């Protein structure tokens, strides 16, 4: 019988099985195999036709020789591997780009090899776009998040200012019974200097203050650091240009109007002009001569609060609003102290020396130094911002780092999972190509190129993501109490590190198994037609990766859930004031121009104007607005029948001077007794209003109104005339706090926050308050005009940020875990298609098959979930102090997280399992 296969199959690019079967009279299955090879070879035109013809001839010869179609297919081997190898073998002369390649690589064999590897890698990655996209996305998320967060952590924690010999610098704090990191008054500081000359080579002070800067007719407020003349030489910082301060700049009060500019302010306000040295600038109503500019890498003592100016400390009374002499007042504590140990002097000797000074101060000034007080030393290198804050800064930085570290780990695990799945595929191909004479070196080169290409793509996408994340963070106008200015560049070290970690993971999990698989026996691998069968080790590894991912997602989700709940609780918490829309204006009546009497007149005039602003329903003032993070005021009183704490001459109670309008404007109610009024004049008997918590504490079960507070140390008696509803004073989480309100009419304050409750827009009202002040006295000191909502936002900020960040990362982790799970389940499905076919042809129904497949995925999820639960229980205990209004073991969170995770896992397993269950059993049996 004469059959001519070749000529029947002519010039068509796209064959279909039926046509090929009709033309060649080969069995359907054989034609399918032939077309599969041709398809994956990627050949076109004449070469494609040629391949079809040859394969048809091959099978016809086989059939003619008496072999069965099944036998022939069995010995033929995997169609995809064959196609790829054909493509590889025929590529060089077939490639239309061959000449271009040669031109491009200029015949250099190394460059040529690189180019070949690269184009091979690109082709391979493009063959499975879904795999490539998922891998790149996983990497980008991990690398981007890591880079952004570590850049922040680096700017906050790791970057050190260029201090000379920092190991010998120490910070000195004043420790009281309640607070170990208090600051000093100037007289205390002078005594400290005098008493420690044996152990300290030098000792410098610094103090933060806000300045009113007048330039080109405009006024704005800028932070400044007031420092001693030896401050710069002590820490070893020299001027960028011009000079820093000298001891002679800081000798007599008010006599040294010189200023050093902070670097970033110099850039911002003066455009980095060198002419600025020698020029004059008006600061808080006085002309100063600019003598120099601080270097770029020194942004003041307080990280994050970047001073625009450094001034000599002898100018303090010129810039502070207080009516008292700061340099002489032992009761005014605002001075930070940093000292340098003498060569040879130890920290221990210094501790003894400062304690001796503290002992002398306690003996001499019992009013301001209680018996339990002391001084403590903290090595300057251990201080980030200020010891009481550092605990939170460190905790937050650590938490963030751990979280993004986990995300990177998950991204690596995902990549590893994918590459492991592909390794089986690859193993065969590598074995075949080794048999064809390819050297191991070439193969390593090609696989490495592919992995590195993935890493580069992921890294590039990660950079884009990281930069956008940082931008987003910087652009977010956070309601912070002071202007925060951090140098947030994208950290290249971190970027490189993240990319390398991911690459290492890729090589470890992708390349190593593939190569290892080629070692033992090439012939056996070549004959082994069932890819991936019996490789229990890799299977176990992939399974553990899923378990790890699920466990980590579980932990992150629990963390996010807790912070979310904490945030909601914070938001729902009632601060006890400010429930209605209001505008706030923090200002001071310039004490150098207004006596207390003149000040009161000025304020009265001001309030008349405030009252005329449209929409304003109530106006009041307070010297110490609740929930502010900047200042706290207290009063020491004695109450008949209630003993003060041991070692204390009286009870220290938070206080504020307020006017009668304050209660209405702030929404704090007078529960009993009366409000302040016109009869509470300066010459009238002293009166006070106490918070309900205070009334309960000092007069439990009795009426507080009419009782007496004995003011310490001057012994003036004050009558309680009213009890006010409780409001949060220092934090939203606190229990109701004792608080004393004193009448502004009897206790003058030049520093105040005005509260204007309004029925119109609070933002607009705030600008109107500011305009009214400026109109009455353009030189009045104004710190801030803002809304009540923004004021309360400061308190909510930590909770809001943690909830937001953790939620973002948890969703990221959940997505990564779901993708990973989906990948693993669908891979195992593809590996077990043959088995499925057998089961179904033996009578198993689609549902049973699906349950079996999905079940194996869900078992992994269950194991991972249990491990995650154990870890979460362990780790959430560490979060306890960062949470508000929710326990670390929050039932809702611990129920919701498994449900969510389970749901996602179910979906990720169900989709591929369902697809597998719909497969035609005959086709499944035929597949290999």
């Amino acid at each position: 019988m004469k059959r001519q296969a070749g000529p029947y199959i002519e010039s068509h690019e796209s064959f279909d099985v039926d046509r090929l079967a009709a033309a060649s009279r080969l069995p359907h299955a054989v034609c399918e195999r032939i077309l599969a090879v041709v398809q994956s070879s990627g050949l076109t035109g004449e070469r494609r036709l040629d391949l079809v013809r040859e394969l048809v001839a091959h099978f016809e010869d086989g059939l003619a020789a008496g072999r069965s179609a099944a036998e022939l297919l069995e010995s033929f081997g995997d169609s995809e591997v064959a196609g790829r190898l054909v493509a590889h073998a025929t590529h060089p002369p077939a490639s239309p780009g061959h000449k271009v390649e040669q031109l491009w690589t200029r015949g250099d064999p190394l460059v040529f090899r690189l180019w070949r590897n690269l184009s091979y890698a690109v082709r391979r990655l493009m063959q499975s776009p879904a795999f490539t996209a998922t891998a790149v996305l996983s990497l980008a998320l991990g690398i981007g998040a890591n880079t952004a967060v570590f850049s922040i952590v680096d700017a906050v924690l790791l970057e050190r200012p260029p201090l000379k010999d920092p190991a010998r610098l120490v910070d000195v704090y004043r420790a009281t019974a309640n607070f170990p990191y208090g600051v000093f008054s100037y007289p205390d500081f002078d005594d400290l200097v005098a008493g420690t000359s044996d152990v300290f080579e030098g000792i410098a002070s610094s103090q933060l203050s806000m300045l009113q800067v007048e330039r080109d007719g405009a006024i704005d407020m800028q932070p400044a650091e007031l420092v001693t003349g030896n401050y710069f030489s002590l820490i070893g910082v020299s001027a960028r240009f011009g000079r820093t301060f000298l001891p002679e700049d800081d000798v007599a009060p008010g006599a040294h109007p010189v200023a050093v500019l902070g670097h970033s302010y110099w850039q911002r306000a003066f455009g980095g002009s060198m002419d600025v040295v020698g020029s004059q600038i008006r600061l808080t109503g006085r002309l100063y001569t600019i003598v120099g500019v601080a270097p770029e890498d020194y942004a003041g003592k307080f990280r994050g609060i970047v001073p625009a100016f450094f001034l000599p400390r002898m100018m303090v009374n010129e810039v502070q609003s207080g009516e008292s002499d700061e340099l002489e007042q032992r009761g005014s504590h605002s001075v930070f102290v940093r000292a340098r140990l003498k060569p040879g002097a130890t920290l221990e000797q210094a501790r003894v020396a400062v304690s001796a000074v503290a002992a002398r101060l306690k003996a001499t000034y019992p009013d301001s130094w209680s018996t339990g007080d002391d001084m403590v030393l903290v090595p300057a290198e251990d201080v980030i911002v200020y010891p009481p804050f550092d605990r939170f800064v460190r905790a937050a930085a650590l938490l963030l780092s751990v979280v993004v570290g986990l995300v990177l780990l998950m991204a690596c695990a995902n990549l590893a999972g994918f590459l492991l799945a592909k390794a089986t595929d690859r193993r065969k191909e590598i074995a075949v190509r080794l048999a064809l004479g390819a050297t191991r070196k070439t193969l390593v080169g090609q696989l490495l190129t592919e992995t590195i290409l993935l890493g580069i793509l992921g890294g590039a996408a990660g950079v884009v993501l990281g930069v956008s994340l940082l931008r987003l963070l910087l652009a977010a106008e956070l309601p912070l109490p002071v202007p925060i200015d951090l140098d947030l560049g994208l950290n290249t070290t971190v970027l490189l590190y993240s990319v390398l970690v991911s690459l290492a993971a890729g090589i470890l999990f992708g390349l190593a198994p593939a190569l290892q698989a080629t070692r033992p026996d090439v012939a056996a691998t070549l004959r082994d037609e069932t890819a991936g069968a019996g490789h229990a080790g890799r299977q176990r590894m992939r399974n553990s990766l899923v378990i790890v991912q699920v466990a980590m997602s579980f932990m992150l989700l629990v963390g996010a859930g807790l912070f979310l709940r904490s945030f909601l609780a914070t938001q729902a918490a009632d601060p006890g004031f400010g429930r209605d829309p209001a505008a706030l204006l923090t200002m001071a009546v310039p004490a150098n121009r207004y006596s207390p009497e003149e000040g009161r007149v000025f304020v009265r005039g001001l309030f008349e104007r405030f009252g005329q602003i449209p929409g304003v329903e109530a106006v009041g003032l307070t010297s110490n607005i609740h929930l502010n993070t900047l200042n706290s005021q207290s009063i020491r009183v004695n109450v008949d029948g209630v003993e003060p704490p041991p070692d204390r001459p009286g009870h220290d109670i938070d206080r504020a001077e307020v006017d009668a309008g304050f209660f209405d404007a702030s929404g704090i109610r007078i529960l009993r007794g009366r409000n302040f009024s016109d009869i509470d004049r300066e010459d009238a008997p002293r009166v006070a209003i106490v918070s309900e918590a205070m009334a309960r504490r000092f007069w439990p079960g009795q009426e507080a109104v009419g009782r007496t507070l004995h003011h310490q140390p001057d012994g003036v008696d004050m009558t309680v005339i009213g009890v006010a509803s409780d409001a949060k004073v220092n934090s939203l989480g606190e229990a109701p706090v004792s608080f004393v309100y004193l009448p502004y009419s009897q206790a003058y304050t030049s520093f105040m926050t005005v509260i204007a409750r309004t029925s119109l827009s609070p933002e607009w009202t705030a600008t109107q308050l500011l305009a009214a002040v400026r109109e009455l006295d353009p030189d009045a000191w104004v710190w801030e005009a803002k809304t009540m909502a923004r004021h309360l936002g400061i308190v909510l900020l930590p909770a809001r940020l943690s909830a937001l960040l953790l939620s973002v990362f948890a969703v990221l982790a959940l997505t990564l875990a779901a993708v990973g799970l989906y990948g693993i389940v669908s891979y195992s499905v593809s590996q077990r298609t043959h088995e499925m076919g057998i089961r179904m042809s033996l009578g198993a129904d689609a549902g049973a098959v699906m349950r079996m497949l999905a079940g194996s995925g869900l078992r992994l999820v269950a194991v991972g979930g249990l491990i995650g639960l154990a870890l979460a229980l362990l780790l959430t205990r560490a979060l306890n102090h960062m949470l508000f209004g929710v326990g670390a073991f929050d039932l809702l969170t611990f129920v919701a997280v498994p449900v969510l995770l389970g749901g996602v896992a179910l979906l990720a397993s169900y989709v591929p399992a369902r697809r597998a269950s719909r497969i035609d059993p005959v086709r499944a049996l035929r597949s290999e």
Partner: protein
Amino acid sequence: MRIERELMRGAGPVAVLQLLEQREMYGYELVEALSRRTEGVLAMGQSTLYPLLYNLESKGLVRTKWREAASGRYRKYYALTRKGIAQLHSYRKQWRGLVGAMQGIGLMESDTRGS
């Protein structure tokens, strides 16, 4: 019998060149010859054989021609090129050298084939 990869490497192309030196052959013929005449030692799946042939072709060691056989079927025949013959001679010399060296150290008897 299983052959270690290191020994197996490069044997495939040499075997194919050797078979083609005797006469031109088509794909299925080569498959059969490799399997039968090497007692299965060099039998390889066709998913490997065809790419190997294409590789040899692209290196210029073999050339191909579609011809009608006596049976009337069209087949693609493979034959050595001049370059292929030279390459085979070079391979043969190397293999002989290798086998001689192995005999020299007593790995195999000089008058029998190693098995």
